[in-house]
């Protein structure tokens, strides 16, 4: 075991992690621990853009953006946070431009903007051009630009260090942050990082779905580490399904494709979104479009011999426009489907995309241990966190915004906290939990294969906890997951070595996924209403009387060591917008 001491430790080197690192490095001695190399993060897969009311091409203001965010989130958004998001969006985009991000430009040389789902002028009148973009590689450009600036600032990275545990120590009856424990992939060594402040920016957990746009590495490691240490998870039942994933593969095709004029069609060639969202049509919010697509498929208007997909039609757009604005996604269609988007429509289906829920934080990024109390020194930002600016459904382009606004905020807050506080003494044997976990996994010889359990988990999640949910399917999911957790206890890991033991890590990751899937299913079962990304066929309407509140899930360990999930609720912060019916 090696012990390192840093003022600020950041877990994860995606958009939020690196944005925080740029701020924290200027103010404190900072280390970034990442299980991948920095530019491998899934921020790079984001395509369409980053919303900010710059008003570069048409009239716009941040107040409209706030409203759209709140309405998009089906009023489960904390409105103070949404206001900060929309207000600081403008500086966030300008900061990135000053860091060197190559945005597309207007003829006047300003940052160009385009339409995106759910972003409207004057509270829903019509679509507005608010998404700042760099072709369909905005996420890639953000990730590269942030990494470039990390190089510039001399940020210290620990690459391929896998954080497996969060260290909290009780001081005067208050849980405080002491550090994290990481597993070095290259050597199998365990490192303890003692830190005054820790920022989790470890990304999402979408890999428990089968058809997903998420990377193989998005396994909710941060959420799971916090969960195991008794911290709550907020709004986990809200998971976004992106309408346009490549059929069967789930690879993302940006909403920008529809922003540029792409149209969704069913097997009769009908532009079916006109029926579901007369004003915004194909640019309604993602949950609405995803449900519409599945409704078409269920009612027998899906395309293909099995009728299990619909088409994204780009054929009416000039090839030059596709080349200039959507080069990557047209290439995906050619590479993976062998389809030429100039002339043929692209088969798509909704794909699991983004976790609205996560570790609860306040607007400074401070992690909450219950509805109001913060854990001193612990921060979270990005998809791992739930501020909550996304509520029940995130608007497209708001996640790239989220990582920049709240990444920056938590980076500053953590470094300032570190400057004014001392190290908390490490608990005795700080690495014990991780050593035990790694040893147990390495010696695991139970006979169950990780891949079988993971596949079964993904299948039950796709079948029972996806776009449409009912009491019955969710109960099925809960019992399936419980059974899989029992099987998980007797898995075997083939690789017994220390160096680059990815076999062992996949087993650990599966454990994280099982924990988080269970929280999702249990939270979803208890939410007997339909709101945003969470749609219950048995309760098809929104119920503001009983459920205008955030779910807070806690891990409880009984006397006998039996684990269970306790659900509690947290009020939604409402400032100026009263809940209305959501129509697009």
């Amino acid at each position, binding site marked *: 075991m090696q012990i390192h001491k840093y003022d600020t430790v950041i877990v994860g080197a995606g958009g939020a992690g690196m944005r925080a690192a740029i701020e924290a490095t200027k103010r404190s001695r900072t280390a970034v621990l990442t299980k991948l190399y920095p530019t491998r993060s*899934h921020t790079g897969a984001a395509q369409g853009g980053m919303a900010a009311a710059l008003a570069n091409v048409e009239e716009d203001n941040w107040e409209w953006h706030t409203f759209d965010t709140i309405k998009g989130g089906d009023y489960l958004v904390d409105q103070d946070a949404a206001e900060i998001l929309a207000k600081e969006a403008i500086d966030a985009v300008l900061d990135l431009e000053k860091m060197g991000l190559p945005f597309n430009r207007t003829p006047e040389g300003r940052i160009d903007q385009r339409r995106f789902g759910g972003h409207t002028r004057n509270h829903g009148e019509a679509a507005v051009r608010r998404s700042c973009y760099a072709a369909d590689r905005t996420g890639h450009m953000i990730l590269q630009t942030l990494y470039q600036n990390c190089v510039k600032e001399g940020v210290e990275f620990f690459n391929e260090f896998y954080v497996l545990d969060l260290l909290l120590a009780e001081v005067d009856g208050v849980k405080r942050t002491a550090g994290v424990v990481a597993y070095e992939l290259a050597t199998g060594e365990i490192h303890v990082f003692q830190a005054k402040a820790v920022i989790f920016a470890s990304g999402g957990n979408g890999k428990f779905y089968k058809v997903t746009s998420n990377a193989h590495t998005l396994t909710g490691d941060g959420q799971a580490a916090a969960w195991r240490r008794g911290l709550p998870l907020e709004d986990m039942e809200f998971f976004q399904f992106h309408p346009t994933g490549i059929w069967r593969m789930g690879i993302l095709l940006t909403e920008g494709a529809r922003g540029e004029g792409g149209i969704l069609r069913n097997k009769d060639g009908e532009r079916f979104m006109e029926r579901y969202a007369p004003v915004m049509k194909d640019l309604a919010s993602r949950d609405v479009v995803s449900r519409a697509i599945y409704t078409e498929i269920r009612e027998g208007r899906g395309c293909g011999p099995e009728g299990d997909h619909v088409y994204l039609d780009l054929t009416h757009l000039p090839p030059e426009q596709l080349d200039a604005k959507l080069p990557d996604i047209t290439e995906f269609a050619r590479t993976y489907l062998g389809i030429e988007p100039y002339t043929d429509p692209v088969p798509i289906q909704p794909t699991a995309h983004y976790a609205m829920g996560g570790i609860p934080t306040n607007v400074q990024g401070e992690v909450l241990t219950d509805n109001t109390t913060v854990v001193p020194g612990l921060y979270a930002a990005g998809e791992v966190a739930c501020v909550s600016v996304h509520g029940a459904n995130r608007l497209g382009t708001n996640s790239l915004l989220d990582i920049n606004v709240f990444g920056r905020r938590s980076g500053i807050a953590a470094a300032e906290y570190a400057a004014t506080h001392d190290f908390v003494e490490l608990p005795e044997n700080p690495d014990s939990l991780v050593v035990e976990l790694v040893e147990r996994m390495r010696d695991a010889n139970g006979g169950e294969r990780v891949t079988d359990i993971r596949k079964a988990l993904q299948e039950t999640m796709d079948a029972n906890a996806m776009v449409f949910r009912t009491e019955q399917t969710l109960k099925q999911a809960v019992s399936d997951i419980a059974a899989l957790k029992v099987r998980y206890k007797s898995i075997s890991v083939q690789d017994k070595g220390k160096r680059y033991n990815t076999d062992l890590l996949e087993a650990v990751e599966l454990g994280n996924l099982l924990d988080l899937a269970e929280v999702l299913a249990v939270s979803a079962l208890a939410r007997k209403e339909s709101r945003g990304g969470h749609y219950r066929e048995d309760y098809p309407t929104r119920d503001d009387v009983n459920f205008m509140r955030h779910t807070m899930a806690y891990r409880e360990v009984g006397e006998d060591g039996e684990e269970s999930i306790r659900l509690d609720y947290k009020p939604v912060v409402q400032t100026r917008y009263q809940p209305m019916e959501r129509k697009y």
Partner: protein
Amino acid sequence: MSTTTVESKHSAALDAAETGDAHLITVTLRVRRFNPEVSDQVVWVDYEMQMDPKERVLDALHKIKWELDGTLTFRRSCAHGICGSDAMRINGRNRLACKTLLKDINPEKPITVEPIKGLTVLKDLVVDMEPFFQAFRDVMPFLVTKGNEPTRERLQSAEDRARFDDTTKCILCAACTSSCPVFWNDGQYFGPAAIVNAHRFIFDSRDEAGEQRLEILNDRDGVWRCRTTFNCTDACPRGIEVTKAIQEVKRALLTRRF
């Protein structure tokens, strides 16, 4: 060098036969394996499996790892050519495993998979990327500007933006650098990827440190070591015209002097 043929009971062939997947074909992956915890020798191992020809090489590697041999080690993340984790040498050419479909590389013959060349192999297909990123860091890959920052964005015309568009696509996968014969023999050469990233800033109208970057690349291990073999352009999974970018840097150096 020895070749192990995996017994059929470990192969996925049987599972496929049971479900009656007629469109599946038999594919053999011949993987160059090295595990310092087992042996100091490199071993080529054959894995035979039933695959859909439309699947990717990465799917085949996953099938091996998940169903046949959990010790096979490789890096991967996004699985659609964006993150740059899984550059490897497939049938003697550098490619991303997640962007290479089996049907496109003649699956009738065994498909060879090796780690990219010129970097230390740590285990199986995993190489030490540190020297590669060192070269990247050495070319000042970030925007440098002088004077006061404007309150709004810096203006840039669409033409100026298009000037360096090609080289902004780089995902740092190292496919180009590790396909370069000069780099194979001398890893101190900056390599195509570092030059591409320098190009991205040298030709950015907003940047004011082009001169320093040119100075760095003017040195012994800089652009003048490029022999224009075009291996890098062929290897780039993002379709960047890498050799052209290197030549443009050379031209900038020459026109700066004369």
